[in-house]
């Protein structure tokens, strides 16, 4: 992997206090992570961007507000990052778009995580023929052009998305949520294809942990199956799950931006970073800032997530089975 130099050596200055209490594996991992500068920088940048996206739209101009005096103006004191062709403040739009992009990244990852962990754990536990069939299915889906499936899913589920939209407008009386149906659709479509790697990883882990002696010991002590699963197996699989979840978020955000860029993802008046990049790339000949700033923020977020993911991988000492 990248030479991030995983300084995985235990710290020499272990205090007596620590020795007496012992230190949990999670504490060890945290100590290792803390020494990994790129990962920490990534985490800090990520927190700043997230907070700005959450809180920013409360303070800055509305993402819809138009400044008709300054249409498509370059970055200035009044509009830090300039305005778009409709005179909307780009900074506000990036923050608002960030909400959607980050939310899609997070929620779709949770969807993928839920499916993948369940599927992988079941396959791993049951083993034998069931496992073989289940993993063969994963192999086959893996070999398919899944981006194409997401594109098709986005189109197939247009109807349900419009239903959700009209329900939000007419029954729930939520104004400003227009286009939310499409975002829900994105969660489902992306989650439906991104779970495969997770299933493979979890299944492999469960399979190897199942055979370990401490599980045997737990069984010998007469613990029930549920207790073994939740107290002994799941905590041991948690490390890889966390690492791959961190690495799935950027993958999902990339897919969302890809779809929005093609005009299949988030629809106006909602916007996401992918949508802003699409708009920017169409207008870049005259208004470079419309492309450079959204693209920059998006890349910075992906950078941070990847550095954090790599750092977590080193800290939790997860051996990548597939790369």
């Amino acid at each position, binding site marked *: *992997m*990248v*030479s991030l130099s995983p300084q995985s050596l235990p710290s020499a200055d272990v205090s007596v206090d620590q020795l007496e209490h012992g230190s949990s594996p999670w504490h060890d991992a945290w100590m290792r992570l803390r020494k990994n500068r790129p990962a920490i920088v990534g985490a800090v940048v990520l927190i700043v961007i997230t907070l700005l996206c959450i809180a920013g739209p409360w303070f800055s101009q509305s993402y819809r507000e138009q400044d008709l005096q300054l249409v498509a103006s370059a970055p200035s004191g009044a509009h830090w990052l300039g305005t778009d062709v409709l005179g909307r403040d780009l900074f506000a739009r990036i923050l608002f778009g960030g909400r959607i992009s980050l939310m899609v990244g997070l929620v779709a990852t949770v969807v993928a995580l839920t499916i993948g962990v369940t599927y992988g754990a079941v396959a791993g536990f049951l083993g034998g023929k069931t496992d073989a069939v289940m993993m063969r299915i994963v192999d*086959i889906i893996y*070999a*398919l*052009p899944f*981006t*194409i499936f997401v*594109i*098709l899913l986005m*189109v*197939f589920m*247009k*109807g349900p998305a*419009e239903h959700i939209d009209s329900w939000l407008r007419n029954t729930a009386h939520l104004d400003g949520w227009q286009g939310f149906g499409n975002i829900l659709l994105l969660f489902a479509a992306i989650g439906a294809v991104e779970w495969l790697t997770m299933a493979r990883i979890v299944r492999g882990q469960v399979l190897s942990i199942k055979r370990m002696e401490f599980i045997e010991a737990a069984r010998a002590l007469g613990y029930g199956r549920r207790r073994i699963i939740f107290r002994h197996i799941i905590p041991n699989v948690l490390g890889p799950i966390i690492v791959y979840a961190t690495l799935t978020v*950027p993958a999902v955000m*990339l897919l969302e*931006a*890809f779809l929005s*860029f*093609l*005009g*299949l993802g988030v629809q106006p008046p909602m916007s996401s970073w*992918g949508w802003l*990049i*699409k708009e*920017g*790339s169409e207008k*870049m*000949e005259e208004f*470079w800032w419309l*492309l*450079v700033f959204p*693209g920059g923020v*998006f*890349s910075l977020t*992906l*950078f941070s997530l*990847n*550095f954090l993911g790599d750092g977590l991988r080193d800290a939790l000492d997860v051996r990548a089975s597939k*790369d």
Partner: protein
Amino acid sequence: MLRFIARRFLETIPVVLIIITATFFMLRFVPGGPFTAEKAVTPEILRNLEAHYGLNKPLFQQYTDYLVSLLHGDLGPSFKYSNRTVNEIIADKLPVSLELGSLSLVVALVIGIPLGVIAAIRRNSWIDYLCSSFAMIGICVPTFVLGPLLVLFFAIHLGWMNASGWYSPVDRVLPCLTLGCVYAAYLARLTRGGMLEVLSLDYIRTARAKGASETRVIFRHALRGGLLPVVTFLGPAIAGILTGSFVIETIFQIPGLGREFITSVFNRDYTLVLGTVMLYAGLIIVLNLAVDIAQVWLNPKLKFE
């Protein structure tokens, strides 16, 4: 080996059939047909259109009709481009996409592998750090940001080439560079990792001990094993380059199949969507098979199973 290939092919048939069936039926349940966008179509004309394309028959019969014509190698008429068949459109557009894809793959291999090898040999040197940064940038700056930025700089600012189009050989440079760079980054990362692992193995030490030159050690002994992860990655890379062409062809206005596919999805051009999806799925499955074979060929420890 032949048995392995035959078995994989047999396995592919139900998969492709499922893809066709699922795509076929799901497309029909989407609100709005291929003719809804056209303005002022009277009910009579609509009926005639539907009769012409066989859309008035029962759904299941349409499906079996489609499968039968498929067996004859006929992908049906396009619903949007009157008087053109899907076969014609694919024959027209696919070569462009294939050229874009294969050139991009060449770019990725030519940049990625040497960079990874050099980074592994000169570990922790400036070139290693350069390689790591390049890999990270390639992974974090998506094609739809990189592409427009390259256009902005080379085409608009410097004026060296056209911003879009697919006419002269110069027009190939930016699209292929954009698409290839991302995969070059992944390949450099994988090559570096693979080479580092192999270079620490005993047989490399043996080769050095018996006095083989460093060049020989690297090219004759290490490269074959070091490139294994690269070959494994080629499968996903090919799939990614194929789907990546959707975006690249949109950015650079290239008349390829990727852009056609996106347009057909928007247009609900049922037969064209089906034909393209099938083609892409088939292409990816076949290429994956080729990658699997190459893997066993490179690594005698693996066996065809």
